[in-house]
């Protein structure tokens, strides 16, 4: 592990607003692992700055980073183009099921009607992931999906910290 990774881990674990500026800078780092740590750190610190998430949704190349970005996207105020990124990823059937489900969940926090169409298009495995995500994060689909059974667990929610998904 390089010193940058170590620093990233420390910042990501900090869960402190003082780490947020450094984490925002690191979100544009060339190394995907640093970007992932930065997004996790921002999620754990409860950062609500939309720009970092919007930029990531536009140009993030690594799937693992996108998992965390999609999770964060449900918690920040996004513009229409960022929602289009989420919708495109959710609509593309070969996208890993957990990521599709996470994108649908995030979209549902902004545009429930649009998300409902995408939920209906999810296959069985992606629907199970969606249920796991709703169970862990709550949100607009909690009433319809939050009590359903699923074999999956929302790994991103566990990584970020369960308390981040609880709303006032």
């Amino acid at each position, binding site marked *: *592990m390089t010193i940058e990774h170590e620093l990233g*881990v420390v910042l*990501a*674990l900090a869960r402190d607003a003082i780490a947020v500026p450094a984490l925002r800078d690191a979100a544009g780092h060339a190394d*995907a*692992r640093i970007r*992932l*740590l930065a997004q*996790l750190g921002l999620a754990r610190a409860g950062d609500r700055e939309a720009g970092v998430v919007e930029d990531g949704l*536009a*140009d*993030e*190349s*690594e*799937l*693992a980073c*996108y*998992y965390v970005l999609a999770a964060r996207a449900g918690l920040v105020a996004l513009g229409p*183009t960022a929602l*289009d*990124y989420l919708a*495109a*990823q959710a*609509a*593309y059937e*070969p*996208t*890993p*099921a*957990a*990521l599709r489900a996470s994108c649908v969940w995030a979209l549902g926090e902004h545009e429930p009607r649009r998300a409902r169409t995408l939920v209906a298009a999810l296959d069985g*495995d992606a629907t199970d*992931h969606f249920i796991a995500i709703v169970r862990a994060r709550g949100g607009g689909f909690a009433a319809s999906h939050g009590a359903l059974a699923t*074999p*999956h*667990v929302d*790994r*991103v929610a*566990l*990584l970020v910290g369960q308390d981040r998904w609880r709303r006032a």
Partner: protein
Amino acid sequence: MTLLRAAAAAARAIGATAEEANALAVAAVRPAFAGSPLWFALPPNLAPDADAPVGELIAWCAEVRDGEALGAAVGLVHEVYAAHGWAIAAAQAAAGERVVPDVADAVAARARARFVIETASAVAAADPDLAALAAVAVEPAGGDLVRGALAALIDTVAAEPPIGARPSARAEATLDEVAALFEVALPPAAAGRDDASLADLWGAVHDLGRHPWMWDAVAEWLDGDPLIFAKAIARGRGRADVVELIERMRHELVARLAAAVEATWRAEVERTRRVAVLAESTPLADAIYALASTAAEGAAVRLATAARARWERRAGEELATVCAELLGDPRDLSALWEAHVPAIRAALEAT
């Protein structure tokens, strides 16, 4: 220079700084007067439409509170004089018994042409208005540029060796690594279906270049991201290298497309300016427009002087009275145009 000369005279009369004088001149410009959609790239004018009832125009001018509003009033007076009959009425008064032929349209066209010539450089420097370019039926810029870039993208990605890695497994493994660093116990990830084929990408990219190239497609490239779905495919297939390639290509393409649009914009503004330069006129229309121009400059000074007196709470002409005179009957304001009487009469003789 005509409108801008009047604006500069008003700026001098209120003792404006260079920066304030520039703001006043900008505010004097009335984009609609150019008669070209391109001119709407300039800031909108504050003053009412010159076709509004004269009482409304007078009331508006009488309330100018700052240099920019004064500029807008100067622009309004210039348009009323040059293109709404004021100068024609003044010319008739200057001509005495002789009837001035109906040259109202020719004078307005002359004024419009001069206005276009005066303001073209500001329009050329403004951000290109794609809707305006579409409205004047300019061929959309950059179609071949975009199609060429899309073809190159397909070519480049097709030449890449296939990657056998399982994308979702790799992503989940990365999350497991990070969880270990955080000392968070994650349950094992479910095995997903994995396929790194990019077959869908060709269709998505090809579709972008398939349709006729229109200005709304240019706008989508400049302000949006037509490659959203292409990136979703590459990302969904775990091809980070292709997502990066697409994004790099998009940034380069948008920069080149923006440059092409700016060049098209400047060329179209220059074409409009040249049409104005070459517009034909008549000696009588020229003479009446010269009268309007001089009168507008004189009116600007009177308006500015009265406005300044009001702003500085000094004794001076009442602004409302001045506005009523300036926008009223030109026969009551012969001082503004009497120097042009010989030129008007000479032009009439030559007609």
